[in-house]
């Protein structure tokens, strides 16, 4: 029993394969998509999506927010931006975080929706740094 997992970004399909389980960072907590999961649509926060096959993680992708469509037989992640974890760069993410924090400082503190969006982006950038750092030891082994 497996589900069809698809991870797509606006530009292209990053991953399309059958897998046992897909754990993704939902905006209200991590969620695992497994065969016969009840149909669910959710928004994602920035974080790492893990693809499990045969009990081990076979692929890891960093997704910078987006949406997911879970159904009994398939699961599709619509990522705003998605990168395999091994290809992430700590420096680039830190640079982006610094830029975002600066624009948060400068932002109009009364404009709550805009602040929320910025806050989500900052959270996503922090998650990206964490993911990138977690990938480094794995690569040096």
């Amino acid at each position, binding site marked *: 029993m497996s589900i069809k997992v*698809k991870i797509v970004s*606006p530009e*292209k399909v990053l991953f399309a394969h059958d897998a046992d389980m897909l754990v993704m960072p939902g905006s209200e907590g991590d969620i695992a998509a497994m065969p016969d999961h*009840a*149909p669910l649509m959710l928004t994602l926060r920035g974080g790492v999506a893990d693809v499990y096959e045969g009990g081990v993680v076979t692929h890891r992708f960093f997704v910078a927010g987006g*949406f997911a*469509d879970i159904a009994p037989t398939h699961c599709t992640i*619509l990522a705003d931006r998605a990168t395999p974890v091994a290809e992430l760069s700590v420096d680039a993410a830190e640079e982006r975080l610094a830029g975002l924090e600066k624009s948060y400082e400068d932002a109009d503190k009364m404009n709550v929706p805009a602040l929320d969006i910025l806050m989500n982006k900052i959270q996503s950038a922090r998650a990206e740094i964490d993911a990138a750092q977690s990938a480094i030891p794995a690569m040096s082994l």
Partner: protein
Amino acid sequence: MASLKELRARIGSVKSTRKITSAMKMVAAAKLRRAEARAAAARPYADAMRRMLAEVARSVANEGGQPALLTGTGQDKVHLLIPMSSDRGLAGAFNSNINRTTRNLVLKLQAEGKTVKLLPVGRKTHDFLSREFADLIIGHRHLAASKEIPFSAAAELGEQISSLLDKGEFDVCTLVYNQFRNVMTQTPTEMQLIPLALPDNDNTASTDLATYEFEPDEGTLLSSLLPRNLQVQLYATMLETAAGENGARMTAMDNATRNAGKAIDRLTLTYNRTRQTNITNELIEIISGAQAV
């Protein structure tokens, strides 16, 4: 009648023109292939987005207070037009079709007493529209200067449109772009972005499944899906414009190359005739000179 020297120069210049147009044709063909591949790669996201949006919208259809991106402002006074052309010319009627369609649309809306605002995308349409409707243009964008159109270009444009809507700058937003039918044919098309015409979800597989649950609730999900959907639609039309531009250029340059070939044939014929006439004239002069002696 032109002299031999002039004719030689003409033939030479038409030959260089033919070389240029045939090179441009080949470049456009290569770019077209890449642009088509990119458009195909972007399709799965757009398809999935459309399906999700239809599903969510269906479940909130009976609730009030829907986002303005979906339903518009409820008025029909101020129209924002977004014509989308390429940055470069020499692509046959590709850009002038957009310009003409937009111009007619502006005049039609103005005749109906509506206010029109323009946000041209692409240098060619901006240049054209700023001649006649300079006071209607509220901003403009060029397509990416780089070879590939990044998604961020569409994202920025989408955010600009969303914020204009939030400020109440317009009621209806329509995109004018070239729909890519095939390499030969691009049809200028008007597509209404806001209020959004929702796609039918009848023939997709998701409807026969159990009803979806949503996390967070439908309203929140919908309001975060809609801006993204706008960006995705803009991105898709940008890619279509890029593919169409290269297709149109390829066709135009193919015709130009063929015409240049014909012109060369005609000029060569004239050249040879003239040469022969000159020789005959010279012979007549020599012979009559000899006879006179």
